[in-house]
């Protein structure tokens, strides 16, 4: 893959589906019009912990409009893990389709199918359930106490059901050799994804034993495999289709209502639609792991990192889902040169809402702790925090501590330099909230470094693609990629167009249908640009090879007489020397005596997960009198290798900043202790940033190149949220002089957003 002038890759083409979205004609799961559709709804536990002694469905069954009801005894009781991951001992099977021993508010107890949503609600309200409430435990400390009762005694005799360890060197020796050792315990809350579209599916289990599911899903192929196991159907009889999708961020990286939907459909012999209300979404899907990170770091008197130790507890809620895998991923997220490293991550069951995958997958939690502690160390050494990062960050050729792979690209220095330049330009504007010398307002900058992955860091990234070439030389890309709005379909189409030397308009993409599109690991771990991208690149190269073979047959020449270069097949045939564009070549080889149809295919297993890098700065004004903070500016500079589509990338940076801002300032899943229920169940109580909460944003993509990536690309999706909260906290700490060890900041300060 050479660094020449590219025609399609690297350009900011608009998303191919943008027209449909701006006219309201894009079809999302709830927009589908399905004949003979019935509706489903789930009876969810109002208690965080209870045993059910009896359920009476007779009155509900006789309610007009109700078609059928499922109770725990009516469905397979087999335990499964709902997360969309390849088979792994870290994916613990601890969840049931329906349960008579609910372990969290929102746990699934029964399900109703009815003629209308109103009849569903009526039916649900008539199911009589006798609960024996049991004592819940919501907090990590209480759950790991030796007297705590176990949520899943069949899995583990402790609520810490999995511990992940990583170690290099000798941290004790490292701390002994350190001039300065600092430690603290940092806590971050559970937060919600708040996709604008809630989780939902339409399931149709036909009488001849075929199951079709339309759902807003990120991990169609893994879900198909899990459903195949739970329902006893071969994968060839299960079809999962993802329509247009209103966001994901990890919330759709697991099964939710699909097993229930499938069984309701089987019961009533009609397609059944189940869609979460916003309240169900907030308590009954998944949240980001609440964390407690004890971090200890030692540095030399020159400020060089000697040793780093992390002891982490993650609150995974009632079921494991992704929990242990999040910790394994978290153990490999240290973008610094350190020889002595020890990580221990503990996954803890509680009766809090289930935690699962959320953008960053463990990285935001540990990066917050680390970057805030590193800033305190820099201040103690009277060193500029930027200087501290420059002295210690990872370089190309290094390994990330805990990971076996050598970095082939890392432009952190360039990111820091570019951001510092932007920072200086902002300061030179000399606009300020400080209006007079006696003002109570202090303005400060904060900085933080982050990294993430291009595909899973445990190297399970796998993807495949097929390209059907039409007889006019245009191409249909088939990819399992489940675009959730991040633009993967467009970026992948750009790769095809670039390799084949055709226009982007000549590429049509079909995606995310397990019947028609090849296996794809799923849109998580930021895998699309790199893993799917490499698969698509390989499939496009396969197309070129197949065209070459067909041309050799047509011109009766050997491989030495044909070269593909700069978008042309240069052919030295016996009678003539001829150059053909891709389309001309297709025209030559199709409707002839020994004509060929061209199909390109690939299977790609990732050996690397090259980290992209981001550096984030925040400028904050702090009012000492009112203890208010106002975020004025956020800068984020990224190294994503060669950008496939710069507009898509800046869109990801801006969106990631918004999510990080919410995490830093205002978002938390709260549990009302007296009611024993999550209390922030709607978008009034649970605030995400609005347009008015956004400060001035400055983004920049540095020049970089990853040799193992398609056209040198790395991925971007999750990384952009990782360094934002610590950058903001570092700015507030610098301005206020406070040591901040916990999010969100609204616990300690007023947040001002108006200019």
């Amino acid at each position, binding site marked *: 893959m050479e660094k020449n002038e590219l025609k399609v890759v690297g350009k*900011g083409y*608009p*998303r191919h*589906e*943008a*027209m*449909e*979205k*701006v*006219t*309201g*004609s*894009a*079809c*999302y799961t*709830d*927009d589908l*019009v399905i004949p003979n559709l019935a509706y489903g709804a789930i009876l969810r536990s109002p208690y965080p912990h209870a045993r059910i002694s009896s359920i009476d469905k007779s009155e509900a069954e006789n*309610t*007009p*409009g109700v078609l059928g009801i499922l109770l725990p005894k009516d469905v397979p009781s087999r335990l499964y893990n709902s997360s969309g991951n390849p088979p792994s001992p870290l994916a613990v099977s601890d969840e049931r389709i329906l349960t008579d021993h609910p372990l969290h508010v929102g746990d699934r107890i029964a399900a109703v199918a009815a003629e209308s949503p*109103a*009849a569903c609600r*009526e039916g649900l309200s008539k199911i009589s359930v006798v609960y024996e409430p049991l004592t819940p435990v919501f907090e990590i400390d209480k759950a790991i106490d030796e007297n705590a009762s176990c949520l899943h005694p069949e899995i583990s005799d402790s609520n810490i059901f999995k511990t992940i360890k990583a170690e290099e060197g000798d941290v004790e020796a490292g701390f002994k050799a350190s001039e300065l050792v600092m430690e603290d315990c940092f806590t971050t809350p559970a937060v919600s*994804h*708040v*996709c*604008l*579209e809630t989780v939902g599916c339409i399931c149709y289990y036909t009488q001849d034993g075929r199951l079709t599911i339309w759902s807003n899903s990120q991990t169609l192929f893994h879900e198909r495999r899990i459903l195949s196991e739970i329902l006893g159907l071969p994968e060839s009889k299960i079809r999962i289709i993802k329509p*247009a*999708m*209103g*966001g994901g*961020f990890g919330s759709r990286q697991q099964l939710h209502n699909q097993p229930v939907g499938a069984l309701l459909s089987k019961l009533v012999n009609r397609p059944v639609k189940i869609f979460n*209300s*916003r309240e169900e979404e907030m308590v009954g899907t998944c949240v980001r792991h609440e964390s407690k990170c004890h971090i200890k770091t030692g540095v030399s008197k020159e400020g060089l990192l000697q040793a780093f130790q992390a002891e982490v507890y993650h609150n995974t809620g009632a079921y494991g889902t992704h929990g242990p895998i999040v910790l394994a991923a978290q153990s490999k997220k240290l973008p610094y040169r350190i020889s002595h490293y020890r990580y221990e991550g503990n996954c803890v069951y509680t009766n809090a809402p289930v935690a699962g995958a959320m953008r960053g997958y463990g990285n935001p939690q540990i990066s917050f702790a680390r970057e805030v502690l590193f800033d305190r160390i820099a201040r103690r050494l009277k060193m500029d925090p930027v200087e501290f990062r420059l002295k210690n960050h990872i370089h190309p050729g290094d390994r990330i501590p805990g990971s076996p792979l050598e970095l082939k690209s890392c432009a952190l220095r360039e990111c820091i330099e570019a951001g510092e330049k932007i920072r200086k330009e902002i300061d030179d504007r000399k606009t300020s909230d400080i209006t007079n010398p006696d003002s109570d307002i202090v303005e400060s900058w904060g900085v933080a470094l982050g990294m993430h992955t291009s595909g899973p860091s445990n190297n399970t990234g796998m993807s495949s693609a097929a390209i059907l070439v039409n007889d006019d030389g245009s191409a249909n890309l088939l990819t399992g990629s489940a675009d*959730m*709005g*991040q*633009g993967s379909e467009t970026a992948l189409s750009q790769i095809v167009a670039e390799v084949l030397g055709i226009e982007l308009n000549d590429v049509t993409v079909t995606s995310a249908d397990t019947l028609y599109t090849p296996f794809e690991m799923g849109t998580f771990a930021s895998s699309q640009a790199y893993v799917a991208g490499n698969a698509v690149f390989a499939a496009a190269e396969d197309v070129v090879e197949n065209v070459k073979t067909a041309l050799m047959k047509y011109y009766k020449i050997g491989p030495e007489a044909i070269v593909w270069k700069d978008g042309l097949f240069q052919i030295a045939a016996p009678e003539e020397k001829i150059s053909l564009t891709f389309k001309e070549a297709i025209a030559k080889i199709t409707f002839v005596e020994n004509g060929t149809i061209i199909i390109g295919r690939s299977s790609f297993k990732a050996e690397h997960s090259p980290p992209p890098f981001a550096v984030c700065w925040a400028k904050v004004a702090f009012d000492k009198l009112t203890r208010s903070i106002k975020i004025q500016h956020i800068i984020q500079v990224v190294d994503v290798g060669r950008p496939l589509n710069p*507009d*898509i990338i*800046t*869109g990801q940076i*801006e*969106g*990631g*900043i*918004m*999510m990080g801002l919410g995490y830093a300032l205002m978002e938390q899943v709260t549990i009302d202790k007296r009611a024993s229920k999550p209390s922030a169940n*709607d*978008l*009034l109580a649970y605030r*995400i940033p*609005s*347009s*008015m909460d*956004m400060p001035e*944003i400055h983004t920049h993509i540095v020049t970089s190149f990853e040799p193992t990536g398609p056209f040198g690309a790395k991925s971007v999706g999750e990384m952009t949220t990782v360094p934002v909260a610590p950058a903001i906290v570092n700015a507030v700490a610098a301005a206020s002089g406070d040591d901040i060890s916990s999010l969100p900041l609204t616990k300690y300060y007023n947040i001002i957003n108006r*200019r």
Partner: protein
Amino acid sequence: MTHHQIAIEMDVNGVRHHINVAPGTTLLEVLREHLNLKGTKHGCGNGECGACTVIMNGKAVNACLVLAVRANKKRITTIEGLASNRQLHPIQKEFIENGAVQCGFCTPGMIISAKSLLDETPEPDRDDIKEALSGNLCRCSGYQKIVQAVASASQSMKRGA
């Protein structure tokens, strides 16, 4: 469970409809289920997210909070009513050009809120735009390109584009 039905009529995107609705039916349900106009989205059902924004008699409203009977004899504009004669509205064009569309679920509501703003304030400044859109939540974009798209749209509409 049968409710008595109430007969209502409304003009949606220039087309007159006569419908019978149960008393508790919302305008959002009428648009999506009775009239099969799926462009207006259901995001929260509580008037918090703005995904269901439509224009009713010239004013932007959350269709999930408007009872259908209150929309009787009113003029409704939904996202489907913006483009005319296969020509996109300038706001729609600018959303595409400026990369303001990611998952697209907030997009119809955003565009309708933007239209409502520009109908009243043809040359808003950035703060006006941010405030007008503050009732439309977006989780993907960070709002930057959306605000830019609306600013560009006001410029191109001023030029008569």
